[in-house]
């Protein structure tokens, strides 16, 4: 028998799929942005007349996936608040499973974004792929790490001003190490780099993916438990008349 946590997570996950599939607006806009970002990045080498170096190819591909993800993933969390259904969601699911359901949908979308970006970008710049299987593996792990980090950042900014921009402004610094590790892994697919360094980077990328996926559901009960509450201060230190000259534990 499935646990309530798992049942709620599955319910939220399938709710996200059904909602996006019913309107298709988010899928269309997100998909269009991914295509446009990949094409625009492909134009960067158009006038050179030569194939970019493997290092540059890997870097450009990673940047494309990063900014595509930064546009697509926050919508999963922020659109819920804009539509006014976030409080309704919290009535039907505990914060942890609600976050996990959205997280798994974010990971699914991120894998699709990475796959489409890889295939289109490689074709546009005609980059020779030396290790195609490793390209897919490293893109997959990279997508997991990015998706987890962006989902966490998006959950932090609920209720903030300019939250659509803030999600990227907060998420991308958290993902800088992921970007570097992703470039090291992907450049090996294009024939550059040593296996030892690449393998270490892949392990590091996997570790970061696990960390970013685990931290969200663990903190969601506290992050979303307070969101929207009209909470008065329980701290007697903050009552009028209290002398704040001494720091009290």
């Amino acid at each position, binding site marked *: 028998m499935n646990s309530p946590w798992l049942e709620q997570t599955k319910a939220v996950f399938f709710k996200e799929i059904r909602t996006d599939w019913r309107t298709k607006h988010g899928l269309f806009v997100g998909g269009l942005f991914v295509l446009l970002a990949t094409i625009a990045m492909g134009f960067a080498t158009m006038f050179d007349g030569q194939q970019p170096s493997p290092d540059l190819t890997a870097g450009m591909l990673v940047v494309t996936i990063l900014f595509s993800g930064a546009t697509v993933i926050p919508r999963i969390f922020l659109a819920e608040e804009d539509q006014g259904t976030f409080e309704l969601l919290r009535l039907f699911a505990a914060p942890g499973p609600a976050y996990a359901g959205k997280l798994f949908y974010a990971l699914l979308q991120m894998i699709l974004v990475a796959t489409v970006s890889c295939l289109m970008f490689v074709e546009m710049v005609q980059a020779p792929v030396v290790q195609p299987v490793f390209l897919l593996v490293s893109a997959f792990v990279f997508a997991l790490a990015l998706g987890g980090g962006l989902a966490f950042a998006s959950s932090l*900014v609920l209720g903030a001003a300019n939250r659509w921009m803030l999600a990227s402004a907060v998420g991308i610094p*958290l993902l*800088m*190490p992921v970007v*570097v590790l992703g470039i090291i892994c992907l450049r090996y697919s294009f024939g550059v780099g040593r296996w030892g360094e690449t393998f270490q980077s892949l392990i590091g990328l996997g570790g970061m993916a696990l960390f970013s996926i685990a931290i969200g559901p663990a*903190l969601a009960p506290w992050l979303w438990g307070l969101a929207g509450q009209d909470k008065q*201060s329980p701290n007697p230190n*903050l009552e*009028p008349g209290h002398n704040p000259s001494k*720091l009290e534990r």
Partner: protein
Amino acid sequence: MKVQHHILALLIFAATLYTFLAPPAVGFAESDLARVIFFHVSCAFVSSGLMIMAIYFGIQWFRKQTLEWDARLGTVLELGALFSLFTILTGILFSKVQWGHFWHADPRQTSFLMVVLLYGGAIALRTSFSDEWKRASASAGYAIALGVLGVFLSFFYPRIPAVQQSSVHPSDTLSGGKLDTPYQIGFLGIFILLSFLSVFIYRMRVRVVLMEQQLDNFNEHDPARGGDPASVGVVRPVAVSEEHGGTPG
């Protein structure tokens, strides 16, 4: 003024004097400018210490959930951002003089730039919330992620053998005893000074934040200032059973 203020002023005077009196270093392109390592390394140590404190205060916020812990967390994040900025700026200056470029794409330089960006994201996050409770929970979640990543980027990543080999930034100057006695004294003295200074600023800032919160709380309840005295306390309807004199339902 209190005794510790006089001591702090004396320490600042002594540190300034020593910085000018310390002998020029041997083995540097600009031997007089080598004195910047007094401040560069000290600021790096202080910002790393503040990063670890941010993790602690973030966890304490989730455990205790009082605005005092948020005041402490916010102060530590602000100070950490300031000291990390000083570190990167002094490092950039030294890099230009010693190695000929403001930015060397050195792994150590790059990893610390990521730390600065992480702090920048924390400041951006805190300034985007008008609700103090949402701000506190979001900041605490971000601080934990910042601390874990920051500790890795500051302490572990630069010591990976492959990174050490490719970096021109020395990593064993202190541990390998490569500093001469005058420079050891200068570094230690300024590190102690900056530690005292950061504690002094931290205590003052937390006190100011708590007083501001107290004033806001007071103004909310004072009708002369546009507040609503009825907003004191939250009244919840209580169902009274028949045996205690209530009317039957």
